[in-house]
């Protein structure tokens, strides 16, 4: 299947928003999506972007049944490991179901790896839900290691009210 992988542009944010929601539905957490294409445009394309994004596009003759040609995306940003230095964290990787199995996911990820290499990053990190077997298999086949299983790392967060409470604690 013919497709291209390009850096996202501000006008792609509506498609990215659509696919973010599709991925959230797949991850069984659609009610957790609170931002729209407006925040994506402001936060990804200003003078200080908080993320980078790649978009996979197919030619018009291969458009989806709903008329979309933007069929996949990878959203990532730079992070820092106090052990190894510069790293890339891949926050989202998604390809619409009807376009899977054609090498698009692989190409998106390879492009993220290429950007990581150009920026002298030593590692790519990401997270996967423990029940998501298709994704787990996809990543393990590429040499990914499960650090939660291997080293016991857990994700924690201070969210919403918990964060506000922490900020207001009296000295």
């Amino acid at each position, binding site marked *: 299947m013919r497709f291209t992988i390009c850096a996202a542009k501000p006008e792609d944010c509506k498609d990215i928003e659509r696919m973010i929601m599709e991925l959230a539905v797949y991850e069984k957490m659609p009610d957790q999506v609170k931002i729209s294409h407006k925040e994506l445009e402001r936060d990804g394309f200003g003078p200080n972007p908080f993320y980078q994004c790649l978009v996979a596009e197919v030619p018009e003759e291969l458009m989806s049944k709903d008329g979309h040609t933007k069929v996949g995306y990878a959203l990532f940003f730079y992070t820092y490991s106090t052990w190894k230095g510069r790293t890339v964290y891949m926050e989202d990787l998604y390809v619409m179901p009807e376009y899977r199995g054609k090498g698009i996911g692989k190409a998106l990820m390879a492009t993220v790896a290429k950007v990581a290499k150009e920026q002298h990053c030593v590692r790519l990190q990401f997270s996967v839900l423990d029940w998501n077997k298709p994704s787990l298999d996809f*990543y393990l086949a590429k040499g990914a290691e*499960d650090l939660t299983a291997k080293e016991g790392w857990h994700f924690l967060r*201070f969210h919403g009210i918990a964060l506000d409470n922490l900020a207001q604690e009296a000295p």
Partner: protein
Amino acid sequence: MANFILRKAEPKDVSDILRLIKELAKFEEMEDQVILTEKDLLEDGFGDHPFYHCIVAEVPKHHQSADGHVIIGFAMYYFTYDPWIGKLLYLEDFYVMKEYRGFGIGSEILKKLSQTAVRTRCNSMHFIVAEWNKPSIEFYKRRGASDLSLEEGWRLFKIDKQNLLKMTDEE
């Protein structure tokens, strides 16, 4: 001993920051994994494009450590992006030297970080903790943190340089 200040790290602090990074890595039983140097920290934190931000805890000279140090704690963080909620503050490392614990320094650092998060419009502060690190997990949970690995099933993965290069070669 209640006398300490928290301040933004400066280039002159990189040697102390690296010392504390190695101490924390030793506690996490992974000291040999630290390959970062002072030069990396300087370039990556104080160059044109900082990959991280850092605050340090400093005590007056008359309270210096057994080895003569006045920088006795630090927190390294950066901003990341969640496509569901937007900007996040990610806490990469957070450490107070053993002899200075129990005086509220850690709590004060966490409070300062959460204030930074709120001030910069972050909805959440994320970090990882090793599951065997019960004292740290308790410290965070007491303050309202939730464990996303347990609650939602997220597992952390990595792909190291060797496999990243393989992916770019395959394209």
